[in-house]
């Protein structure tokens, strides 16, 4: 990359989060993870189920206390935020949760769920303005006005997911952690939501951490992609580089498992299996820049090999 370094909005430095630390059932959900998210970009995080993606999102938002390492937001260490700065951070950084059912208060009407953040942050002058905002948000996510007075259980899975999206957008955040925001949606509404996210990215210079399993969508929407497995970040690079020139064997395996929407192709697709021994052999590995901006967790020899395998 030439010219000025883009501004870093979020910086994770050697982040660790261990559940049940020191006990027999210790889980290293985040195991020394370092990466930056630049202002205005969509950073896609993919990887095995249980690899720590949601935990990273929740830790950035201070919903978990990290075991070690640092998280900076706008250059400030978030662990030290207090008072006004903390409430500003709570408004600026929003999360769309993976489990919409569990994250929506079932006793509140949709209108009030969406407006909760507007109320807390006093973003509407009066009721008319509040209602107008809610209407606009409902429309934005493809729901209609009379949905406002209903309760979450009256909605389908995908409709509930969109309520969560509208709620996150309501407070004009700067940074959104979108945890599987579209997997419950049909492809047409996925397209609408993804188009909307991209539009907000440019218009409001929103920054996203986009966690998803649908790799073709991640590739399409993300500027850069990070690949996780067992609490570690294995590879990071531009969406094109990771998708078209994967380095790490896990990334290759993951890409080979993407189902293709073509019954003829699907009947013959081969899946590359991943041999996890390279994560358990105890060798020291670090992030090595194999191509400009494209890093892989490897030993020097492995990095050389990965590069040689590239065509």
């Amino acid at each position: 990359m030439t010219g000025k370094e883009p501004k870093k909005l979020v910086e994770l430095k050697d982040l660790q989060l261990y559940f049940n630390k020191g006990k027999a059932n210790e889980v290293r959900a985040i195991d020394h993870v370092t990466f930056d998210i630049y202002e205005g970009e969509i950073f896609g995080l993919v990887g095995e189920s249980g690899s720590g993606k949601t935990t990273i999102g929740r830790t950035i938002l201070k919903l978990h206390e990290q075991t070690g390492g640092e998280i900076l937001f706008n250059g400030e260490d978030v662990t030290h935020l207090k008072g006004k700065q903390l409430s500003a951070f709570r408004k600026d950084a929003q999360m769309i949760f993976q489990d919409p059912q569990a994250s929506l208060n079932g006793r509140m009407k949709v209108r009030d769920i969406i407006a909760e953040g507007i109320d807390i942050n006093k973003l509407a002058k009066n009721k008319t303005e509040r209602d107008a905002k809610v209407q606009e948000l409902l429309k934005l996510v493809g729901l209609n006005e009379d949905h406002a007075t209903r309760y979450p259980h009256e909605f389908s899975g995908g409709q509930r997911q969109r309520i969560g999206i509208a709620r996150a957008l309501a407070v004009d955040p700067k940074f959104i952690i979108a945890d599987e925001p579209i997997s419950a949606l049909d492809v047409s509404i996925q397209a609408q939501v993804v188009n909307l996210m991209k539009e907000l990215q440019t218009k409001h210079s929103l920054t996203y951490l986009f966690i998803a399993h649908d790799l073709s969508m991640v590739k399409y929407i993300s500027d850069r992609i990070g690949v996780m497995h067992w609490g570690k970040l294995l590879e990071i690079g531009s969406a094109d580089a990771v998708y078209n020139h994967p380095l790490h064997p896990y990334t290759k395996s993951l890409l080979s498992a993407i189902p293709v929407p073509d019954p003829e192709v699907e009947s013959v697709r081969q899946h590359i299996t991943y041999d996890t021994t390279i994560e358990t052999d105890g060798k020291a590995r670090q992030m090595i820049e194999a191509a400009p901006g494209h890093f892989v967790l490897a030993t020097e020899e492995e990095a050389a090999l990965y590069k040689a395998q590239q065509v």
Partner: protein
Amino acid sequence: MSNPILKVENLHVNFNTYAGTVQAIRDVSFDLNKGETLAIVGESGSGKSVTTKTLMGLNAKNASIPDNSRLIFKDRNLLDLKEEEWQTIRGNEIAMIFQDPMTSLDPTMKIGMQIAEPLMKHRKMKKEDALKRALELMKGVGIPNSEEHINDYPHQWSGGMRQRAVVAIALAADPEILIADEPTTALDVTIQAQILNLMKSLQKETSSSIIFITHDLGVVAGMANRVAVMYAGKIVEYGTVDEIFFNPQHPYTWGLLNSMPTTDTQIGSLEAIPGTPPDLLDPPKGDAFASRNVYALAIDSKEEPPFFKVSDTHYAATWLLDERSPKVTPPVQIQKRWARWQEIQGQEA
């Protein structure tokens, strides 16, 4: 050839709400054959989950189903069953993997026990044996170090692990009909592949039937024998998986297939279907998709299209198939699919 284990006839489901009656399912009929996988795809809110929850006798309290709706399973209309009779069918002969894993797991019960429970209840297994089978299933759905996790509670698991627990519970029963509502959406593609393979191999062993609901058309392509496409409480097109992917006829199906990013979608935006789905409190007259359909004809806003036959296995409810309708040119991507269809037909002939 067809050998239906389940016949759904003229299903209607209405929900009474403060705002009025939501007509969620508006005359749905289909057969499920023994040993087949039928995928149901379609718009979010189109009624996929309501249809399948009805098959499990699990609709919300505010649901009402008119008398002429019939769900025939083993010569009985499931809609006539009393709750005690459901007990022997639900989770046993018909099992379901629910869309929302957290709501179908008991937060206060160890996951191993939750998988073992249906085995103790329906198969009269001893606790010890049931837990052994539970462990096998946990391994089968790819929970690493299953032994260490059998006594975990749901909150200790990631979203995808919980979803796998729900899959294991449904598979434990060895059901004749397995309903899978978005069973793999929270999973990474590798584990998704593992679970889909497990479902396929169990299906081969027991020739059970699967109703598979998913938004992932890649998964549909790999799993389904037949596909039904739903829109606004109705099935608008159904056919074999090849017929739906390569010879789609309904403009909604076109829109659906067109919305997916392909690896060469680089710039610009995705082709979302314009507009919002109709309000089922007051469904529009005629074809419910008309207002969002650039190919809509005048008749669409007046009269509902019947099913037109495309082949013995393929039907679509769109006036475009009426012989009096003008010939339209579908989107480019669909034309490409039709060309593929010609090739495939040519190869088979």
